[in-house]
């Protein structure tokens, strides 16, 4: 069956594939570097700030806007989306396997409701006037 697959690929295809893989590797290093452990989650709706919440406190936050409603849960220092009115429900899956987001390079994004949840206030960043000690000293900070 795979005999037919021969004689299709050209040299330029492989060059393109190689370039894309290099690009992938480079962006992965940028995206998955171990971020600083943050202290607060910042919620934005349609680019405007909705509120910031401490990661230390277990809480359930209702995010209501014209675009829809989301329920953000903070549990054991990690934040995840527990309910959403959006049709695709992608946000409920994001970072769910790790228990939620807690580092500064992680986000929860609900595109239909235009909700962006990000972590900020790590040990090196300014904490927006909130005086809290950032959680555990982070491991594997430098790659």
């Amino acid at each position, binding site marked *: 069956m795979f005999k037919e697959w021969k*004689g*299709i*690929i*050209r040299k330029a295809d492989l060059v393109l594939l190689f370039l*894309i893989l290099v690009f992938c590797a480079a962006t992965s290093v940028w995206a998955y570097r171990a971020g600083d452990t943050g202290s607060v989650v910042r919620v*934005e709706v349609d*680019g405007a700030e909705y509120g910031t919440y401490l990661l230390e406190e277990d809480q359930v936050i209702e995010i209501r806007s014209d675009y829809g409603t989301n329920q953000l849960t903070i549990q054991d220092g990690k934040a995840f989306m527990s309910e959403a009115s959006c049709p695709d429900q992608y946000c409920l899956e994001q970072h769910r396997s790790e228990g939620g987001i807690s580092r500064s390079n992680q986000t929860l994004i609900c595109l239909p409701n235009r909700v962006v949840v990000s972590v900020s206030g790590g040990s090196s960043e300014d904490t927006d006037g909130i005086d809290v000690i950032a959680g555990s000293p982070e491991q594997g900070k430098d790659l």
Partner: protein
Amino acid sequence: MKKAENTGANRFRPGLNRAERSRKQASGVALSSVLVALTLIFSYVEMLIPFNFGVPGIKLGLSNLVVLVALYVLGPGYAFVINMVRIMLSGLLFSGLSAMLYSLSGGLLSFLVMLVLMKSRLFSPVGVSLGGGVFHNVGQLLVAALVTETVKIFLYLPVLTVAGTVTGTLLGFAAALILRRMGRLPEWNVPMGTGTDTD
């Protein structure tokens, strides 16, 4: 080597007489509408398959296979119209207007990239589809970043690029096999290590 008589370039050759040309145009329009219907069926089938990675935009994109084949067989003009009509209709039928914005940006950017890669005559359909697949996702991310006004959304770029590479390559192979069966692989498409293969 057998030469294909009716390749894309001389399909609408100006030398043809008027009646012949309008007949060809009518068949082109009819074929395009059949292909649009096919893309809608593909979109519907894909919608039925539950496929949730937590990141929107990861899917096989079977309808892009149709666009890719149309690009080679009918030419850029028809392929572009098929692509646009497909996005409008599947947006209205299945995904809704806001999701249509994402498929529109992805569809436009990927079409542009595929056109350039094809016209360069350096790539086989596999390379063309690969580039199209990756840039489809880049286009969607660009609009998502604009809508949410968050640059952090580009954190999804690696995942989406890998997904685009895999699906693009698979669809490219499928397109190449279809085009070869149709006798429509362009003659400039000389694969590596040729000369040995007598088809």
